[in-house]
């Protein structure tokens, strides 16, 4: 040994010293369910397509998006975006404009002609879909991607269901709807319009269908008894909206009263304004807080000059006058009459008291249970009759599923997807396996310090004068720069987005960076378990676990 004076040992590295043995807790990487994904009734992986959008990978983003929802341009307009209500960023500054980005992606797809291949080779199975609303289209699209032959039977002359006959064109332009329906039909889905189905079992037998998905929607306006003289013009909100879509709007007169407090009531009143009504008044028996209409609809209606009368019912109508009775809320929040009345001028009374489904096509089908006007379905969206599935507005919430009391386009798209996957499994005779939901990524798990302050980008709105006179789309879209900005506001709650922070902050150099897309790994030989990485992870994707000895 040739060593300097007084030196007896060879030089060594501290790597020989495995400090991991000090540890009593260990950090582990986790994936948590982001609140946006959790809240999406269509089950979209929102965080995933926002991530793709952040580096302008719009087609990739769109392809992830349409795995769950074939109608992004429609949804980017008509969805009431529960994702944004749930968004954790709302607790920091303002929610990410998810709906606006979805619309941007949907519009990009239409503009660039992105399309979808049917996917798997033919299964030889034939599935009948009744109704071409969001639920029916969603199911047909998913079934086609799974390789089945699909025929949609639609009673109306045009496809789209309530997207066409319930949502006015100022919220959803018809060319957008057409483009997305055409894309689905273009995948090889047979679409038969003007063909109401009256006996489902007979049609299935005659057409050689192996399974059916029913999604006829709730098209019939509910009526309330209003004692009305002959001279008063009374009509249902759905027939008003659909006749406008058909290009033959009715003559409403100058003073229009809409009875009801849902989104359809708002749409009817806003439509009346556009048809020239100087006074459009909504009469609702409870208060604003208890109105089922979404806030944004109520706000936009008010902006357009629609007036609201709360706590009122219509006691009678005659000769262009309505008699309203004032209500008050009892201790349970139910409205009760006060006996006080007032009068209101009205040329037309529009009833928007909700819709119900026409379930006559199911009469005579054994084992189908109908409760409170909707068909009962299992967790797999199957009715009591094997092979017949149902969803959308005509079905109750799937058993065991989350109860979403909304009847929206988004819920319907979710039903369609769920049903399609169940039908696929049923046709193959296998049990469907549903992955366990990850624990929710709550706001408290985030370290928001790392997200720079960034206020939300609002979509432009049509000026009021044009909103009161035309059916032009009210809400504009984002352009690319602000869509990109908005996507980058996503905090990636609960899932690693490779910000390198854990790799940076470890005092023991015990985090290994595995390369782009591969995330990181802990080197437990040296990790002392200090927990700095857990504390400093911006998105809460690391958890501490006790060390088991």
């Amino acid at each position, binding site marked *: 040994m040739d060593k300097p004076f007084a030196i007896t040992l060879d030089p060594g590295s501290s*790597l020989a010293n495995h400090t991991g043995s000090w540890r009593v807790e260990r950090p582990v990487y986790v994936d948590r369910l982001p609140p946006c994904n959790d809240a999406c009734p269509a089950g979209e992986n929102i965080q995933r397509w926002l991530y793709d959008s952040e580096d302008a990978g719009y087609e990739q983003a769109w392809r992830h998006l349409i795995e769950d929802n074939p109608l992004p341009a429609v949804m980017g307009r008509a969805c009431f975006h529960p994702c944004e209500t749930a968004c954790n960023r709302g607790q920091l500054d303002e929610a990410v404009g998810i709906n606006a980005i979805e619309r941007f992606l949907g519009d990009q797809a239409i503009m660039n002609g992105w399309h979808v291949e049917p996917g798997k080779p033919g299964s030889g199975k034939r599935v009948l879909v009744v109704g071409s609303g969001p639920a029916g289209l969603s199911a047909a699209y998913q079934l086609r991607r799974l390789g089945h032959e699909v025929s949609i039977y639609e009673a109306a002359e045009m496809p789209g269901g309530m997207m066409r006959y319930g949502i006015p064109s100022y919220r959803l332009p018809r060319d957008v709807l057409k483009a997305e329906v055409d894309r689905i039909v273009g995948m090889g889905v047979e679409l038969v319009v003007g063909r109401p189905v009256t006996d489902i079992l007979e049609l299935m037998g005659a057409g050689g269908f192996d399974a059916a998905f029913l999604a006829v929607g709730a098209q019939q306006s509910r009526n309330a008894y209003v004692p009305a003289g002959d001279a008063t013009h009374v009509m249902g909100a759905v027939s008003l909206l659909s006749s406008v879509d058909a290009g033959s709007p009715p003559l409403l007169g100058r003073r229009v009263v809409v009875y009801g407090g849902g989104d359809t009531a708002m749409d009817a009143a806003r439509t009346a304004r556009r048809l020239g009504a100087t006074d459009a008044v909504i009469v609702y028996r409870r208060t604003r807080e208890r109105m089922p209409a979404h806030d944004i609809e109520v706000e936009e209606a008010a902006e357009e000059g629609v007036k609201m009368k709360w706590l009122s019912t219509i006691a009678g109508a005659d000769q262009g006058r309505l008699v309203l009775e004032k209500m008050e809320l009892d201790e349970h929040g139910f409205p009760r009459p006060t006996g006080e009345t007032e009068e209101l001028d009205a040329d037309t009374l529009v009833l928007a008291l909700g819709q119900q489904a026409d379930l006559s096509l199911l009469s005579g089908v054994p084992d189908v249970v109908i409760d409170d006007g909707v068909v009962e379905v299992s967790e797999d969206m199957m009715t009591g009759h094997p092979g017949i599935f149902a969803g959308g507005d005509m079905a109750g919430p799937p058993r065991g599923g989350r109860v979403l009391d909304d009847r929206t386009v988004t819920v319907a798209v979710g039903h369609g997807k769920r049903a399609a996957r169940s039908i696929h499994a049923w046709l193959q005779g296998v049990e469907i396996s549903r992955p366990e939901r990850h624990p929710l990524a709550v706001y408290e798990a985030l370290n928001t310090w790392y997200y720079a302050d960034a206020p939300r980008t609002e979509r432009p709105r049509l000026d009021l004068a044009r909103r009161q006179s035309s059916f032009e789309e009210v809400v504009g879209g984002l352009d*690319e720069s602000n869509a990109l900005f908005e996507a980058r506001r996503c905090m990636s709650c609960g899932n690693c987005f490779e910000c390198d922070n854990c790799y940076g902050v470890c005092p023991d150099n015990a985090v290994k960076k595995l390369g782009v897309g591969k995330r990181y790994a802990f080197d437990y030989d*040296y990790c002392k378990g200090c927990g700095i990485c857990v504390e400093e992870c911006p998105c809460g994707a690391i958890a501490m676990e006790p060390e088991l000895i």
Partner: protein
Amino acid sequence: MTDDAPAIARAVGTGARTTPGDSPVGQPVKFYQVGSFAAGNRLLDEAHRSVQSTLGRTNSLTSGHRACQGCGEALGARYALDAAMRAAQGRMAVVNATGCLEVFSTPYPETSWQIPWLHSLFGNAPAVATGVAAAYRAKGRDDVRVVGQAGDGGTVDIGFGCLSGMFERNDDVLFICYDNEAYMNTGVQRSGATPPGARTATTEAIGREPGNPFGQGKDMPRLAMAHQIPYVATATVAELHDLEAKVEKAMSLRGARYIHLFVPCPLGWGSAPHDTIRLARLVKECGLFPVFEAEHGEVTSVSKIRRQVPVEDYLRLQTRYRHLFGSSEPGGSEGRPDIVERIQRIADANIRRLGLLDETLDEGPPPDGSGGGLSDRAAAGVL
């Protein structure tokens, strides 16, 4: 993407500043989710990412060192020296004073250092660094840079004479002080950098003025500035981009340079190991530790407070201040709100003196790592 695709999208591809040829700080591309404040950023050019986010970082201080769980000094040393290694293109020698950093990294015959590293005594690190620099100069090796480093004891107390001389002679050394506010290696004794009110082994929490007395101690960054050396900066382990930018700036200059780096000590402060970076963040956000840079004795920029907090938020996480806060148990102490108030006044004075608060929204540090608040040169006008 259309031809008139917005600038922001184009800028992503290049990682470029929107106005090329602008000041060194420039106008950054705006990044949000991807952590303008986090170590890395997948949307940025490699060249503009922090040293710590890269696979190729030196790891000057590698794994297996015997620092406590959550050691701020071990973290700060790797942050600073890795940045210095990049700036010096790998040609660098480091002189270390005695202290935790030396003891936990180099128990004979092992070492955690992956850079040329020299230890002599507790008090003479600045003088040895001066000698190393002189030796390289004599050999005509101006390309090799020299860094001296010490804890707060080795800097403000024991090594102060040597350091002052090094400053006065304007020797070509970057000296880094890792300030954890006491002699931690020997058992948490008070140093000249221990803050008022803090309990140490030699300033127990007893008597009318429990903990370290007010009105004593040394404000080392200001003492360094008084030497009129080319560059003085303060930084914390909570602001990586800012720290790396300052090290890079210091390495771009010649002569005596000084960086005072705030590094929490879980053992000596009685804080949770996972709170190390949080404490470093809070101390700056409450105003107790101003983060700024100065050239030739003049403050040239300050890092603004982003989310101001009362000093109590910082103090409460540390048992060395426990005696200042009452106990909820029956018969428990009432604490010393008067002392907390005095500490708050120190923070308020710092905020006033350096203009640490700004009404304008903080847009975050530029992703090219040139330091957040540093971009605000206007702040210098306030001083």
